[in-house]
């Protein structure tokens, strides 16, 4: 078995997450094996026979091995889960089960309804401070099929889109039609934050939400101060609140 340069690392131990450690450990093992098989020293091997001896099939086997142990990958792009459902955890809240779906973030602040019927159900990083809060109807948008449907039928007026994608592409053709956005990811400088700012659409990024269902009337505290880069760097909490409006 060959020995790698990194095998004598004084300070580094292992990666921070199990899946990365599993992959990198397996790759290093592969490289040791192929180096030994080559019969070459490292300097001849690394940009020479390594290209022929370390192949896509080797990497495919590493992926397969983790799945054979029973691991299922967390997905972020829906296409990944749809093309390899056997390799990824199941997708929820992207199809017919939407009516019963809600984000349940453990960090979401909650409180019972107050005297005016406002029930605290979460918070988020405000992208732009506005003069008034915003009230609208929560509608989850989590897949390209949902976007296509809204593209064909139009987005209902007063829609506050509830999205877990801080990117600007999934909702690209319909974003302009949103009244507000609650995004469960990203920062105020994420692409969705940038675009909603350009369009003048109230938006909370990094939202922590609980119990908001499709069709709920919600109120966004858009009058809250907008979160700054300095606040992110220093870890300062600076959020606007999200209430469900009880009728």
């Amino acid at each position, binding site marked *: 078995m060959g020995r790698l340069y990194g095998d004598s690392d004084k300070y580094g131990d292992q990666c*921070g997450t199990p899946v990365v450690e599993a992959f990198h450990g397996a790759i290093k093992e592969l490289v040791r094996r192929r180096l030994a098989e080559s019969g070459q020293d490292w300097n001849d091997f690394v*940009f020479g026979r390594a290209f022929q001896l370390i192949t896509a099939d080797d990497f495919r086997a590493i992926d397969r091995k983790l799945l054979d142990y029973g691991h299922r990958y967390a997905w972020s792009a829906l*296409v990944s889960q749809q093309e390899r459902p056997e390799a990824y955890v199941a997708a929820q809240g992207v199809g017919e089960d939407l009516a019963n779906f809600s984000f349940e973030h453990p960090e979401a602040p909650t409180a019972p309804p107050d005297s005016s019927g406002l029930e605290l159900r979460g918070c988020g990083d405000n992208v732009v401070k506005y003069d008034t809060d915003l009230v609208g109807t929560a509608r989850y948008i989590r897949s390209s099929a949902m976007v296509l449907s809204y593209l064909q039928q139009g987005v209902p007026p007063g829609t506050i889109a509830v999205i877990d994608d801080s990117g600007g592409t999934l909702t690209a053709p319909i974003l302009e039609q949103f009244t507000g956005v609650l995004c469960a990811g990203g920062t105020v400088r994420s*692409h969705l934050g940038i675009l909603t700012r350009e369009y003048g659409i109230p938006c909370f990024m990094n939202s922590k939400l609980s119990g908001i269902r499709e069709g709920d009337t919600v109120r966004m505290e858009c009058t809250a101060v907008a979160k700054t*880069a300095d606040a992110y760097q220093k870890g300062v909490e600076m959020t606007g609140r999200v209430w469900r409006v009880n009728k």
Partner: protein
Amino acid sequence: MNITYTQLLETNNLIQQNTDETYWLCLTRTVQESKLFPVSPYMILSYFMCFYRYPSLLRKIEQHMTAEEIGDRARNMGTKIQNPAMGWCLPSFYLLGREYLIAMGMIRPQDAVEDVIYVMDFWKRFELAWHRNDGHLTNRDFGHRAQVLPERKLQIFHADMYDCVEGDALHTAAQTFMAATSQYGFLVSCESRIALHNQGPYKLDDEREMIVRDFMDLAEGDYPWLDGVASDMPYNNLTVPMAVKGCHFNIIDDWGSFESQPEFKSHHMVGVGLYTSDTLSEGHVPVGMGSREELTRTFEMLAQKAKEATAKLWQRIAGWSRDQMIDAGAITYFSIIKDLAHVAGCYAMEDWVLVDERAERFRPLLNDEYSNMSLWEILGPLTNPCQRTNEYQMCQHANTPARMYSLIPYSILKDGDYTRTVGGLAPGMSYLPPKEDRYRTTQGVLSLADYNARAREFTPAVCGEDYRHLCESWLKYHHQTPEADALYRLEQRQSRLLKDRGAGLRRADVEALRHPR
């Protein structure tokens, strides 16, 4: 190539500068994700492509034109070779590819040393030339500011922009254009922000600042996925000088994005202009700038075209396979510096829009979870073993004993135990349809062969040998000379208000011309 101690010292310094800034950018600027695109998988694939191909491609470019000369050209147009491409992506994409391979045990920090030295040196020379008017290496080096442009160009942007206030037709049209085109740019770029760039701020008076905003690669050009859907986009690159009142742009970073105090809102915008440019244009060419009404109509027309192209492109992308999405994203990232080759007149489709077979090997590893987690580790907590340093160390910003990008060990000067290069270009492949031979330029829709031939033959007048080194420091003491006057008149040829005004105007003179009594 005999590697010297000085070269290693400088290369390691450049690597460390990228380490420090990358952490800050990733911490404060964004979390890039998408439910549509497998973003992390394509980013990682692109890093491998950059590591294997950039050294050869940059050397090929410099056979035609030096990095410094391309940097000088870059000040004269709004194409991709600004930020984020040059200030951050070129070095960091390359270094991220290198670090991933080190983390996997596939290479050592002392492998491909000549490549690393060359890539970082190319980057430094380009950056110093591009930034020569502000005298910095990067925006970070300038405290997150970018004052790249010479006075003669700033005067034209200042003079010819139209005033606007929130609610008027021009303001509404410009705001809609910028929103729609930003969104289109994100989609064209597969969820990355690389179609957008901001530079500045430039001071117009005690109350107003100007930033220069670029929207790039909008039309049929280098990306195969724009063939057909972008055929109605009449300009590939658009530049919007934008004046604001009541807010100060305190951060313009090397990703080309801005932050202001107080936060920028649309009502702060009080002036706009519109230009196009590319490697074949004499600088920035006015678009719809003949009158306020014409500019309003032009913004409206372009916003509508951006929205139409967005809808068409989105539907095309929604039908793609995961491999096609990964290819498009990886190619977008990897080819972010491709305009270097366009300027040099040596662009080849095979160089820039295919996945190198050495990088392609890694695709089976790139499931969403590994990609997200490994990217987070390498950019955030820096927990790869190769990134850990001794416990006394406190890295910039995070104060942890870690370094994002490994330095080259100086021991190679003693023991000679290193490798020089990854080697030349290897074949590439792609799951995407082949690129059609249509490239929209300021000289019309051209074939690539024609585009390259014209690029090789063309030198913008202000970039020619007569004027290239007539810098702002020279101008300060020679503004009254015929040479300075001729240089300014060249720049002013298409200006509505400054045509033939020459080199003598000061900022207040320009403002007075905008509002004659």
